């Protein structure tokens, strides 16, 4: 990886060479901060962006997406791939980490999701190192940190009047090199000047190894305790950057129609309800078991990385203020 130092002006000038890219950055409307399309000129020189309340998931797995158009009773079909080029700047290391979790589902495991792949391959993700911890952040409690690249195309460190850019993407590195004051080939984040990185002592969450969690799936009493506060809504899964479960339905207009993909949540009743009326996960006990185990056991077991990035969005969204950190601790101490 290449580490480059540039003045702020040069860094923005370098970005102008991506003129054929749509630029997205976090923008506040009322009490929500979401990724909005802006022009490169509108990028603030201090490169300070608020943390998005809706994660970058909405650009890679949109709440609604057309898979293909069809003509009923005929074989006419027209798939719709989104190939717009996007440059997304201002995300945080936890968002980049979340994209790695989404990649593990959509780009590995024997099948390839063309819709997700075309959005992922046509996007450049530039994160910024966090200046301070939000009250609900806990990435450090999971062993991650506010200054990691986490597979992003580049991370921008605030070095006062300059910026330090650790570029994982070679194309981006070359374009920045022309404007750089200093460049250095490095192995990882520890070898670079990361400016003022916030740090606090934090007690690591007692996350177990994936298989250690398996026996817990038979402990009804544990999940009964966790379930009691949950209302069974989709707020946590829709706002979680690593929750990718989706539903597929058809929308018609006379003889034609389109098959669309929309969000779904393991907390909803219809999620596993079978045509016979049997529901293998009838109550919130089984559903909370699925939610927790999927992030802390199944994804690590199948793909080798935690399904939770410590971004804390579910803490803010939950109507019952359920705190997944408490659930991790409680599960670790549960003796049945």
């Amino acid at each position, binding site marked *: 990886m290449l580490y480059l130092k540039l003045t702020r002006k040069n860094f923005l000038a370098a970005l102008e060479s991506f003129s054929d890219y749509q630029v997205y950055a976090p923008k506040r409307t009322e009490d929500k901060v979401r990724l909005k399309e802006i022009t490169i000129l509108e990028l603030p020189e201090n490169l300070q962006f608020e943390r998005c309340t809706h994660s970058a998931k909405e650009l890679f797995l949109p709440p609604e997406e*057309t898979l293909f*158009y069809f*003509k009923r009773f*005929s074989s*006419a079909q*027209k798939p719709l791939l989104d190939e717009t080029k996007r440059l997304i700047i201002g995300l945080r290391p936890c968002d980049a980490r979340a994209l790695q979790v989404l990649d593990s589902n959509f780009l590995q495991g024997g099948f390839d999701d063309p819709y997700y792949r075309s959005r992922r391959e046509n996007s450049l993700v530039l994160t910024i190192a966090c200046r301070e911890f939000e009250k609900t952040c806990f990435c450090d409690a999971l062993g991650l940190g506010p200054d990691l690249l986490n597979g992003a195309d580049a991370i921008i460190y605030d070095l006062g009047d300059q910026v330090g850019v650790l570029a994982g993407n070679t194309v981006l590195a070359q374009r920045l090199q022309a404007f750089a004051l200093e460049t250095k080939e490095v192995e990882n984040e520890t070898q670079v000047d990361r400016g003022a990185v916030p740090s606090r002592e934090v007690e690591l969450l007692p996350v177990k190894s994936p298989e250690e969690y398996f026996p817990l799936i038979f402990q009804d009493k544990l999940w009964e305790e966790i379930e009691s506060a949950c209302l069974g809504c989709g707020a946590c899964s829709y706002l979680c950057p690593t929750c990718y479960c989706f539903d597929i339905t058809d*929308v018609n*207009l*006379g*003889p*034609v*129609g*389109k098959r669309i993909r929309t969000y779904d949540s393991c907390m909803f009743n219809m999620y596993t309800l079978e045509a016979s009326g049997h529901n293998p996960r009838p109550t919130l006990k089984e559903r909370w078991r699925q939610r927790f185990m999927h992030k802390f056991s199944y994804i690590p077991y199948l793909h080798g990385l935690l399904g939770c990035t410590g971004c804390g969005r579910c803490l803010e969204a939950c109507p019952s203020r359920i705190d997944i950190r408490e659930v991790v601790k409680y599960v670790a101490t549960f003796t049945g």
Partner: protein
Amino acid sequence: MENFEPKIIAFLCNWCSYAGADLAGVSRFQYPANVRVIRVPCSGRVNPLFVLKALYEGADGVLVSGCHPGDCHYQSGNYYARRRLEVFKKLLEFSGISPARFKMAWISASEGAQFAQLIREFTEEVKKAGPNQEIIREKSDLEEFLNESR
């Protein structure tokens, strides 16, 4: 929009209003052809979701017509309908959907003339309100594919 021809959906109760509409036809009363009639057993059967779904799919006006209070074949169907649809009509107005879009009427089996008059008035009102843009679904991409696939 003078050449705008509104699409109107009418839910007519089978025992009175449907018969009234039939009488209007038999008696050769003239009334605009914009209305598409859906027969329902009683005005009490009309679920406000029918109205929202009709507007969502592209109707410009929705009419619900039943027997005059007291004449209902099922005794109380229209009384329930009266409370429900009045609250619903006001809800549509409160949410900013043009009041002309939804109309409720009592038409008995012998009021063919009134039915024709009702439809003439309602069509005018909807024409004045213009095409439904308040709650109509997004169709442009599907219409485009429809033309392509022809």
